[in-house]
């Protein structure tokens, strides 16, 4: 159980750094979505099932969709 | 009854392993998608039904879950495959048949 927690925390740290640092904006949104799913899992481990349901539905569904729609409107963003 | 459930869970684990192996070994996007989707659909079916057989009071809920997975999983994989085709992903050179290209060569832009 504790090994699982350490692995999840490590992966969350890596995903956060990747989401902030990666050049391609599309990859950035996808890493943010994966981070949200892992955060929902952490909420389940913290015995907060209500918050986990809201986070899983919003972080993986609505937030990703809204960010991708924005990205498509600004034509890929042209980062540098 | 519960031994049968454990047997179903073991079958599901084997299918999950085969799916992961297929994702690692297959050459391009569509082959990997096919391996992953087919194997994990059967794996999820037998795992969830096995849990429902071990705890008989949950059996109806697991049946609903199986029906939902049967409805959504093929649709999702077909959407991913079509998106990969539209985005002109690289195709494995051994591929010989391109049915979408021969069917809708003109109106690809919709």
């Amino acid at each position, binding site marked *: 159980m504790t090994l699982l927690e350490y692995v999840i925390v490590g992966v969350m740290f890596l995903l956060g750094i990747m989401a902030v640092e990666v050049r391609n904006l599309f990859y950035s949104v996808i890493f943010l979505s994966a981070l949200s799913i892992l955060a929902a899992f952490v909420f389940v481990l913290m015995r907060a099932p209500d918050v986990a349901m*809201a986070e899983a*539905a919003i972080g993986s569904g*609505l937030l990703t969709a809204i960010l991708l*729609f924005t990205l498509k*409107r600004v034509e890929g963003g042209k980062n540098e | 009854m519960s031994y049968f459930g454990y047997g179903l869970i073991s079958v599901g684990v084997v299918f999950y392993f085969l799916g992961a192996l297929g994702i690692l070994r297959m050459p391009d996007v569509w082959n990997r998608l096919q391996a992953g989707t087919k194997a994990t659909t059967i794996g999820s079916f037998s795992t969830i039904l096995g849990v429902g057989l071990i705890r008989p009071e949950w059996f109806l809920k697991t049946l609903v879950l199986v029906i939902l997975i049967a*409805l959504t999983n093929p649709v999702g994989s077909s*959407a991913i495959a079509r998106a990969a085709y539209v985005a002109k992903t690289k195709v494995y050179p051994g591929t010989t048949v391109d049915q979408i290209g021969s069917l809708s060569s003109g109106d690809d832009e919709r």
Partner: protein
Amino acid sequence: MKKLLALIISLALFIFLFQLVMETPSKLLSERVSSRYVQKNVLSSGEAEETSANLVTSVVLSYRGLDTLGEVTVLFAAATGVAFFMKNVKERLNFLFSSFIVQTGARVVSPLLVTLGIYIFIHGHLTPGGGFQGGTTIAITTLLLYVAGGLVERKRTVFRTLEGLSGSVYVLIGLMGLAVGGAFLYNFLPLGKIGELFSSGIVPVIYVLIGIKVGSELSNLVLHTTGGDNS
């Protein structure tokens, strides 16, 4: 150079917050603010705040009911802002992968998803879930129908009407509590026993209203974000 400076600043912030959290003592259960909501028995049917089985629902709708009204209003303000900024954006987003299979699948799955959302917010005071989660599920159904080829383009006035209606009824129930019991959002319905569907007074009613409001609000927000003719 600038990245190095940002790294130093964020590391300093991290160390500062770490010290702050380390020195905060962890409280016992009896010293918490929420201990009154926690220590309750299934068999008793006591005060108004003690009869919903989900403690989070009890805190959201009994202890902070007025706050929840304010938060739903903030969501409404955000949706209005999105509609204002996207007003002149004419072109719609097109999805090349909205094939026949996806459309049929969306048509089959969407009633099941709406049913799931309604189940979640009706049982919000008994099981995990509630108005916010159910509303989000309904908004995701709207998103699915949009991605599958614009099947919900005509439903905008329905969403707008539902959203305004549920918000008005929320305020109306609060005012009825003010008239009956002398406090805004006073729990004036019969309370019942913990664990049954018709228990804990006005809490399930308000949670259903919040579910409808959040669902239509987020659906409107998604439809505004995708642009097109907002009318």
